[in-house]
């Protein structure tokens, strides 16, 4: 019995979307974006992580800015005048979104880990994102 001369091609199913560069196979674009990455809850978890990173990067700058008060009101005022620029205000709106989204999605994680399972996770995740966005829009409406 002779050994097969070619490697069997994997079935083109999403379940076999492991290594997109399997030898002998053409690149399957679906493998670059596996099914789970299209799931709302996966995206919500990614938003939770990215918002956390964004806030972690912002916090030291926030603390440095507030520390300007040690040099007197005039110094802090100079910085606050800079924050009146529309682009800065827009960034502040994004930060309000990140803080709200991170806190609300964090509450959902705590609920999943400590309370009875709730089946409507997609709706909860969507509600958290929408509420966070609404807060950001409200902030911008009040300040711009």
């Amino acid at each position, binding site marked *: 019995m002779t050994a097969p001369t070619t490697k069997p091609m994997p079935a083109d199913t999403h379940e076999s979307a492991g290594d997109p560069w399997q030898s002998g196979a053409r690149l399957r674009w679906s493998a670059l974006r596996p099914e789970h990455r299209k799931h709302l809850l996966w995206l919500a978890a990614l938003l939770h*992580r990215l918002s*956390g*990173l964004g*806030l*972690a990067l912002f*916090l*030291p700058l*926030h*603390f*440095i800015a*507030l*520390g*300007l*008060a*040690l040099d007197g*009101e*005039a110094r*802090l*005022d100079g910085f*606050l005048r800079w*924050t009146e620029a529309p682009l800065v205000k827009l960034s502040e709106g994004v930060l*309000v979104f990140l*803080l*709200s989204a991170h*806190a609300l999605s*964090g*509450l959902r994680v*705590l609920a999943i*880990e400590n309370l009875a399972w709730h089946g409507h996770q997609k709706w909860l995740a969507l509600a958290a994102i929408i509420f966070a966005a609404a*807060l950001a829009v*409200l*902030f911008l409406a*009040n*300040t711009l």
Partner: protein
Amino acid sequence: MNVSLYVWQRGTAIVMAPMVAVHLVAIFYAAGHGMTAAEILSRTRGSIGWAAFYGLFVVAASVHAAIGLSNVLGEWTPLRRRGAGMIAVVFGVILFAFGMRAVGAVTWP
């Protein structure tokens, strides 16, 4: 998974959840009632309450962010637990130092 770090991260999250709500209310209040240095500091200077609130917020945020950063570095970079942990500790200490300085700056009479 390190159970102790898991508990500290979840614990600080629980502590901070209502604090984030208060902070968001404060943001909206400040945005609507004056954002000059004099106006902000008139609301915070000499306030033991705000000093205690934001002091606790800084401590909790420093711990929470450091553990979170350690998790992200361990999962998204080639760093292993020790390297990620060291960077996270340094970051947490920096956050704590700058944070307490900021609290002092806006609440010290």
